[in-house]
Each structure stands twice: as C-alpha cells, then as structure tokens.
C-alpha cells in the first residue's frame, strides 16, 4: 500500500525542505549530496585512522605515525598508493562481473547516508519510511560482494562470498526486529522523527535492542568477531582476494563506509543522534559515530572469530528469539503507555529484562558452539 | 630414565618365536632379516614385557654395500627403548615391508626414506616422494649422489 502511495504521490512524501532553507528543493538536494559524499569520504579516512592508531595502541605498538602530523595523512597515502597500483584481473575471471562488483557494492553504502540526519532536518531526504529504506538498501551491498566472489573465479573468493550471503540473509532478521522496538517507541519510521522523539537516548529504553542491533550490525558489515567473510587467517582475504588497485580501494572504502553507516544508524536510533548539550549538533553526531566505531575497533582487537555454523546458530537461536521477545515486551510497554509516563520504570524494567534474558537464554537454550553439523 | 634394552636379550626372545630371524645383536641394537621384519615388529609391539608402542624414528644409512634401516622403538609403558635394524643389500631396487600398519608414525618417515634413499616400502598406503618433486633424478642421501 505504502509503495503504491509513494509512487503515486511522488515527491509528496519528501518532507523535504526545512522552512528556513534559502532556495528550493534542488539547492537542498545539491548541497546535501555534496555533504554526504564529503562526509563519507572524510569519515572513512577518519575511522581508518582511528582503527589503525587505536588498534595499534591496544596491541602495544604505535600504529602509523610517519605521514603528516601524528600520521593523520596515512589514509591519504594509502589511498594514493592503492590507486597507483596495477589493476590485475585474473585470466579466468568473468570480466564484466569482476569489474562491476565494486560499484554495485559501493553505491548502497553511500545511499544509506541519504536519510541520516546530521542535525535537526539536515538530511538529504527526510523519508517518512527512512528506516525501511535503510534496511532495504543496506543489503544490496551483498549482491556486489557476491558478484566479486563469483566473478573472480577464485575458490577463496567464492567461499567468502557464500559466507557473506549466508550471514547477511540471516542477520537481516534480528536487525530489523531490533529496529522495530525503537520504531514502536518513537512512533515513526522517519530517521529525523526518531531522533526528535529521543528525549533520553533509546539505549536506555532498549538495552537489549541495542545489543542485538550492535551484534547483528557487526555481522552485517563483516566486523569482528563476525568477519569471517574476509577471514584473513582462513580464506586469505575472502571475496576481494583477486582485487587490486582502484577496485580494491573501492572495496576497502565500502568496508569502512558501511562501518560508518552502521555506526551512524546506531547512534541515530539508540544514542540520540545529533542531540547533545553545548556543542553543535553535527559535531555531536560525529563524536557519537566515532565512539560507536571505536567500540567496533575494540571488539575487533580483542575477540577471536566465530565459525560459520556458529554464526548462523547465533543469529537464529540467540538473536532471533531475543529480538522477538524484546519486541513483545516493548509492545506491551508501549500499549501501557510507559514510554511517555513511566520512563524511569521502563528503564529499570528493560535493563532487568535484558540481564535476565541473556542469562536464561545462555543458561538453558543457547551456547556458542552447540549444534555442530556432523557429516 | 629410559632403559636401553640389551639387543642380545631381546634377540633371545625373538629367536624363541622366530628362529633364525636375527642376524646380529649388539648391546643396544639388533639386526634382523628383512623377510621377518614385519613379524618381529608385530611381536615387539605386542609381546608382554616389551610392548614397544612408540616408534621414535625410522631412518636409513647408506653403507655402500647395503642400506641399514634403523627403527628406534620405545615403550611409553615400560620406559625402555631398542634400535632394530634391517639390512637391504639390493642397491638397484631395495625394498622393505612397511610398518605403517603397526605404527602410523612411520608414514611420513618412510616416504622420506623412499624419497632420499630410494628404498621402497611395500604396503605403504601412499608411497610418493615427500620433499623432492616427482621426476627428480636420483636419491640425494645415497653416498653416490653428487
């Protein structure tokens, strides 16, 4: 029904122009396109720097510190180096698919940022189905990844791509279910509305939802401990084993752009987005994105990788039932009107529920490593 | 402390069971006939009081007129050890029975001896060259290999 509406009314669904914006829709569109591209590129450089330096320090070494002040220009140097490299295409590769794969993977990663608010109303398109749009778009990257794995005609690539497809298909479900809890409380699918509705960050109201979303999001974008699509110790580099030069740079960009995207979504849905005292909203937003990304770096530094069957079991036997239960409890609370009236009670109850559920579920129903598939 | 069993004592035990199979016996080793090597090996592995369940290593030495293949056996239960040798006089096409059926640990080592000395082990499940590639000429650890 909604899609029919959307097509029929066309632009009508864009809430589009904030009232004080000088110029029309097209200026808005042009400005934010530039902002989004600039934001993604600079943030990718920023997070690469954070990842390498932060991980270096956690591993008792320094990380890159030679190019520029504090090594800040290292991502630039990397980019220049990788762009100047020879572009090698395997003889047996499916040339067209091999060539197209990075583009297909990159476009959705960029498109996600269209609906992410940097400040109140400051976003490319304030879709009233923003979160649905994100869910739909974000899994398109998988097609690119699978094209890369298939087109390279390399067995490692194929293994990596198959793992990725399996993981993304499974993890979409808990991801979406974790979002629904937030949507229920906020009462809107629009990203901007969700932020506006957060008088307190939703992580307090939805602790279990946050955990589920964080785990599922990490799996969705191949961050450790779910990075087994490009597990370097097992299948060399996974789907981009055969990529080099510019195309490899694209995949590298996709990897980090997706990480930034998931961080941005997490901080929009759970951490209050651009809201914060004193500092300007866009700065708050960037700080929060960086913090979430740092958490990902932190887990990547510490945790071993899980196996593919454990990955699937984790999605279906742990995250999925937990998400359902979380959704059920949230729905009851929303029916009872808690989010508006008994906010403190909801915080306490939900934290208790989270701890209780995790304990019970891992005590009786699920343990990592159960249910190995025998041959 | 691992006790090195006297070859003479063990030779006596073997002679009882398989008369005429021991060629020579010294204080710490004994040399057996190639034909009865597998039987003796099984006897050494299973006989009470010996129970050599652990094969430390297998190796060969080229003495120009013959190859001596040495099996160093020990028993983790009784903590004693023994070196059993077999001599292979054929230089063109030396062959020995494989002991992989008794001690799986001999698998790679027999392949290694095959590779580097050219001694074939009959009954080995996968007797291929191990370090050098198929088609390499000669067997490097033979003394006449330059």
């Amino acid at each position: 029904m909604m899609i029919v509406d959307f097509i029929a009314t066309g632009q009508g669904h864009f809430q589009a122009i904030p009232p004080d914006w000088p110029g029309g829709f097209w200026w808005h569109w042009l400005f934010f396109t530039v902002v989004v591209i600039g934001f993604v590129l600079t943030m990718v450089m920023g997070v690469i720097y954070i990842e390498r330096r932060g991980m270096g320090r956690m591993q008792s070494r320094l990380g890159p510190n030679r190019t520029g002040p504090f090594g800040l220009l290292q991502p630039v140097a990397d980019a220049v180096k990788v762009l100047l490299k020879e572009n090698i295409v395997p003889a047996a590769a499916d040339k067209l698919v091999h060539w197209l794969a990075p583009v297909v993977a990159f476009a959705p990663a960029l498109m996600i940022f269209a609906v992410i608010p940097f400040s109140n109303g400051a976003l490319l398109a304030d879709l009233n189905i923003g979160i649905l749009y994100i869910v739909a778009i974000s899994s398109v990257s998988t097609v690119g990844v699978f094209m890369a794995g298939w087109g390279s005609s390399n067995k490692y690539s194929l293994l990596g791509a198959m793992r990725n497809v399996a993981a993304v298909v499974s993890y979409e479900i808990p991801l979406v279910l974790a979002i629904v809890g937030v949507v229920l409380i906020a009462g809107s699918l629009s990203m901007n509305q969700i932020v506006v509705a957060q008088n307190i960050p939703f992580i307090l109201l939805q602790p279990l939802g946050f955990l589920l979303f964080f785990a599922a999001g990490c799996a969705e974008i191949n961050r450790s401990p779910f990075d087994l699509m490009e597990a370097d110790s097992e299948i060399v580099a996974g789907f981009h084993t055969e990529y080099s030069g510019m195309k490899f740079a694209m995949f590298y960009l996709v990897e980090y752009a997706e990480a930034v995207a998931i961080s941005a979504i997490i901080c929009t849905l759970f951490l209050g987005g651009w809201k914060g005292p004193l500092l300007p909203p866009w700065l708050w937003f960037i700080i929060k994105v960086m913090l979430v990304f740092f958490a990902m770096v932190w887990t990547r530094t510490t945790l071993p990788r899980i196996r593919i069957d454990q990955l699937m079991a984790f999605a279906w036997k742990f995250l999925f039932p937990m998400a359902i239960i979380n959704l059920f409890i949230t729905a009851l609370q929303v029916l009872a009107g808690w989010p508006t009236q008994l906010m403190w009670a909801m915080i306490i109850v939900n934290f208790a529920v989270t701890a209780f559920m995790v304990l019970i579920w891992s005590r009786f129903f699920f343990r990592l490593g159960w249910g190995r598939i025998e041959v | 402390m691992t006790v090195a069993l006297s070859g003479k004592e063990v030779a006596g035990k073997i002679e009882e069971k398989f008369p005429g199979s021991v060629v020579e016996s010294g204080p710490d080793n004994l040399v057996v006939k190639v034909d009865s090597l597998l039987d003796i090996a099984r006897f050494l592995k299973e006989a009470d009081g010996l129970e050599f369940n652990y094969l430390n290593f297998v190796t060969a030495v080229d003495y120009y007129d013959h190859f001596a293949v040495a099996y160093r056996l020990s028993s983790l239960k009784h903590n004693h050890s023994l070196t059993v040798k077999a001599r292979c006089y054929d230089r063109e096409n030396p062959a020995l029975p494989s002991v992989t059926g008794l001690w799986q640990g001999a698998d790679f080592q027999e392949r290694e001896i095959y590779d580097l000395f050219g001694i074939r082990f009959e009954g080995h499940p996968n007797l291929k060259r191990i370090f050098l590639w198929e088609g390499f000429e000669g067997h490097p650890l033979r003394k006449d290999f330059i």
Partner: protein
Amino acid sequence: MKFERYGIGIAKGLTVTIRHLLRHPTVNQYPEQRLNISRRFRGNELIWNREKCTGCGTCAKTCPQGAIEIVTATDMAENKYIVDKYEIDTGYCIQCGLCVEACPYEALYFSHNFECARYRRGELVQGKEEMLETPQRKVSGYFYPDKAQKLPGQTLLVEKITEKR
C-alpha cells in the same frame, strides 16, 4: 564449565585490551631512537688484525660456508707467511662466529657495526683493507670479554617499563 557463558570471558578480554590503550607502547622508532646492540654482537662484518695474523688459515678451514679466502706467500727471510689476499664474502657468511673462535692468534673479530647493507652483491665482498679496525667500525666483544667491557651496555627491553603510562 561455569565460565563459558554470559559473556564474562569476553568482558575480561576487553578490559585487557583497553588497559593497553593507556600504556606505553613497546616499540621504538628506529632511525631516531637507537638501542644499543649487544656487546657480543655478531654482525655482518669482520675485523682483521693485520699485525697479529700469521696467515695460518685456520679461519678459512673452520668456516662452514667457505666464505673466507686466504692466499699467503712465504717470507723466507723472516720465516713467516705474508697474507697476499684475505677476502670474506659476507654475502655467504652466516655469522656463526666459528672463525673468530678458531683463530689461535686473536687476529679476527666481529665488528660492532650493524648498518652495513649494500646495493650490489659484489660490494658484500670484504677485502683486506676494508677489514681493518676504524673508529666507525669498532671491534665487537664476541669471544673476547675484555673487548666487550669497553663497549656500551646493551639496552634491554626488560628494563623498559611499559606497564604504566
């Protein structure tokens, strides 16, 4: 197997890594920050004492790689050998130190210099003149404890505090 659940092990691990974030890194920045190498350093270069060498060739015999080439002539008047050619191909040298240990006249030492990379293989061959002791190339204390005493002490990582910020 009580501890296998609830994420306690994961949380413990996370504390360890975050604590390392606040510690000093263990690495040092090589060209600016140089550590003293061992007093007994066995490097790529050898140092030869022209006065003490009698040209007996023990070093060449001991060398397992055959990297030392020594050609001598007999000086009948003084009843000794004259070393015509003494060459070490440091490209073949495995720095085992057996030649230094074998020299009966204490005429061969290791050099304490470690930055001796070359661009060409041919430059790796050390001739007679390049093997003498110079201020840049000090004698290493390998096998000669009295020489070792004169060298600066080795910087040890065990003495570097990395646990506190």
